[in-house]
């Protein structure tokens, strides 16, 4: 019985994580400019990945695997904000202005940076 509850809990976490991943991906496509897209992508790295890791930890129970998953979580905790910072910084240095207001000028600038 308790095994089933744990399983259900872990699946709920996994599904939530996956859902956030999809949302993030959707945002990446739908958002109008580079910075907002990064904002959307942030979800996948942080909450999405963390929830999935958590779900997996619940699956694994108290074992070496959980420790490894924790380490992966810690690694992501450091790296994803840093890489986001680096990317945003590079974009700003390269002279890409955040798009403020109207959505007409869509993509022009953002496309260029993507390449």
């Amino acid at each position, binding site marked *: 019985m308790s095994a089933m509850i744990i399983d259900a809990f872990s699946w709920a976490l996994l599904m939530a994580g996956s859902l956030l991943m999809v949302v993030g991906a959707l945002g990446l496509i739908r958002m109008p400019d580079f910075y907002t897209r990064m904002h959307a992508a942030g979800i996948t790295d942080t909450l999405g990945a963390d929830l999935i890791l958590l779900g997996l930890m619940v699956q694994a129970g108290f074992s070496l695997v959980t420790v490894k998953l924790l380490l992966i979580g810690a690694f992501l905790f450091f*790296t994803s904000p*840093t890489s986001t*910072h*680096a990317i945003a*910084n590079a974009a700003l*240095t*390269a002279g890409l202005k955040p798009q403020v207001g109207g959505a007409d000028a869509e993509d022009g600038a953002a496309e260029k940076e*993507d*390449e």
Partner: protein
Amino acid sequence: MSVESFIDITLLVFLGLTAFAILKLRALFAVVMLSSVFSLLSAGLLVHLDAVDVAFTEAAVGAGISTVLMLATLALTSRREKAPTRTQALPLIVVFLTGMALVYGTLDMPRFGDASAPVHNHVAPKYINDTASEIGMPNIVTAVLASYRGFDTLGEVTVIFTAGIGVLLLLGAYIREPTGLRVQTMDHHLVLRVVTKVLIGPILLFALYVQFHGDYGPGGGFQAGVIFAAAFIIYALVFGLENARKAVPGSAVRMLVACGVLLYGGVGVVSFAFGQNYLNYSVLGASQVAGQHLGILLVEFGVGLTVSAVMVSTFYAFAGQNPPISDEDW
């Protein structure tokens, strides 16, 4: 359809889409990132196909080192592919015929996952059955890689050594004196500096874990070498090439490249002294298992040494080039 084949098919379809996008896109930056994605996806598929060691390597190499090298190349060359001008009929026909030939060849193949296929019933069973008693380590892949087919691995180290020497020959002579201007350092970024400092230690530790844990789990000299080099490359990226060169000069790296191959080749030579054939590690220890263990440990270390040194020296060679584009283009 089982969950197994569902995962399998999904990953394959994703791979197909990625490959197609790479074909169509002309923005090379995107192409390189997608090729990195392609490698990561195939690493996922490899895990699913039980090839954990291979997946590890593919992730480290395809999604890691190859991508870094390609990005460096793009920085030095151009970031947009010209629209194709010539007709594409002949390549298409050649490729189509080749593909059809292969599909024709699949018709008599054993089906996917079939345990009665010849592959699983001739040479391989010995590895699975005898590794425990003859080599004495759980990771069969490491045992086959370093001992049963150890000579292939010596060849592999020689290949990577060749590449290292080749890149040095091609680009080494052109390395400019580091000016501190051309090679962008990022150490004025507080965030990057701090995080890099925090991370390099654990990454190096992880590399050592992968290196010496290869007997028991996925890992080994090659993966460890790549990870070790990655830590170093991060350092060079953030703190500048000159600082990295100060820590480990290019000439020292070049020596290390050679040392790994020498170590591997040398371990093999020891067998001669005991009247055994080349690369027979059993003579190294009191018992066969002990000897094999020590031998594998040593040659894996040789592999790790050469691989990491080659990666670092290759990175030095690429990063030391004078980029024809200005820093602002980045």
